[in-house]
């Protein structure tokens, strides 16, 4: 049996009176590529953001590589018990955002080597060479000295993926990585993500790309109003949806 990379147990999260997550659980083994689907407002992004504590869950447990993130109840709600533990775990869990979020004042290469050098304390020359190799891999090595504003959306997202890879993460979180892209740019990003999946990287992908969910991921999870409506192997789920809601969802996303 392979090791569990991420385990999420009984996650709950409310924003004011709105309960976004009503007890969601998930387990990803090393090498799993899990697509998380759901209508907007179903809580899929919130769940992903709870994994690296960009949102602090009100209740539940997040365990990365066997280490559970310690949370404590305070007067201002639930908070991480140890900020340094959160920072350390975040450096093992890379995230790719819908809106890229590259640092605008740094070149593409500087974006890629920032965390390896300043967070993980890696040697500059090593980080530099690795960064260039990663930019090569995502096909934008010629843009290394450009700034994010000089790149197209697809190139920026590929740079953001290289930035995430540079941290040698245990798990990669993708939060709707193609939703902000023009249709003709979606393909180049999906191709890079597919190649990562083929390398055996552990990926949790919130997406609306049904093709990716069906063909690339080895598990699909469908959220509806803060609960897991159904999950399983993509072939079975898409060919023969058990849930009526999921059937409607995929037919409306064709």
């Amino acid at each position, binding site marked *: 049996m392979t090791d569990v990379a991420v385990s999420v147990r009984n996650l709950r999260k409310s924003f004011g009176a709105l309960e976004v997550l009503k007890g969601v659980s998930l387990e990803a083994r090393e090498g799993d590529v899990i697509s998380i689907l759901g209508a907007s407002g179903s809580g899929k992004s919130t769940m992903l953001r709870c994994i690296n504590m960009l949102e602090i869950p009100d209740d539940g447990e997040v365990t990365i590589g066997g280490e559970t993130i310690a949370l404590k109840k305070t007067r201002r709600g639930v908070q991480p018990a140890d*900020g340094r533990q959160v920072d*350390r775990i975040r450096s093992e869990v890379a995230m790719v955002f819908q809106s890229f979020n590259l*640092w*605008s004042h740094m070149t593409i290469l500087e974006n890629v080597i920032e965390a390896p050098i300043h967070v993980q304390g890696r040697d500059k020359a090593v980080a530099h060479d690795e960064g260039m190799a990663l930019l090569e891999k995502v096909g934008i090595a010629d843009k290394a000295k*450009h*700034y994010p504003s000089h790149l197209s959306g697809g190139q920026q997202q590929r740079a953001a993926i290289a930035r995430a890879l540079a*941290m040698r993460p245990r798990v990669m979180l993708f939060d709707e990585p193609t939703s902000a892209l023009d249709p003709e740019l979606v393909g180049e990003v999906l191709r890079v993500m597919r190649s990562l999946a*083929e390398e055996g990287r552990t990926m949790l992908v919130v997406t609306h790309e049904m093709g990716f969910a069906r063909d690339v991921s080895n598990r699909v999870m469908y959220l509806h109003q803060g609960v897991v409506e159904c999950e399983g192997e993509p072939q079975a789920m898409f060919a023969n949806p058990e849930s009526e809601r999921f059937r409607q969802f995929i037919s409306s996303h064709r």
Partner: protein
Amino acid sequence: MDLAFMGRTFLTLIEGVPLLLELAGLSLTIGAAFALLLATMRLSGVAVLDWTAQSYIFVFRGTPLLVQIFLIYYGLGQFRPALQDIGLWWFFREPFYCAVFALTLNTAAYAAEIFRGGLLSVPHGQIEAAKACGMSRLQRFRRITLPIAVRQALPAYGNEIILMVKATSLASVITLMEVTGLAHRLIAQSFRAVEVFVVAGAIYLFINFVVTRVILAVEWRLSPHLRRAPDVEAPMKPAPAHARGA
């Protein structure tokens, strides 16, 4: 216009420039540090700190610098025994220190709001990306928030620098012989206000010309991302196989 007289006037007034630069330089440096503190207080989310900083900014922006200088130099002078008791008289006895003090407090109030605007303009997503890769609070501030905020605040802060160069002229009212102070004395001796003030004005104009150029140069250096993309150095390489089609 008596050009020979203006030439002599220039040589006299130029002696006030070092004092002018000291006043502006010192108060801007200390004021900027203080302003950063005030701006972070405003953004701390702690009501007491926010409120304290807000009141401070309200008072120092809402009253004339001239009044502040008078109050600090002459006003505090009335409390000499008390100041001597707490060992601060040596400071408030000196017009130079009083002028630097007043200028610092004043510029800090304005710069605090400029810095706050800069800090608020940093896109939330970029800070989130910094969090997501495990940067500590301090690292995030130093590596991401501050560099972006500085770039945003620079044009407005350039204005503040220019205003401060001119504001040093008010130090002349508490006996400091910077450019305006020297000009006053020269007029009292020669009764030739026009020539003297034209020369004095020209000196300020020149200093601010240099200041403007320096600010522009710094802005240019800090904003390569707003300019055209650099020319591609290496010839375009074909994308690797897995990025082209899998």
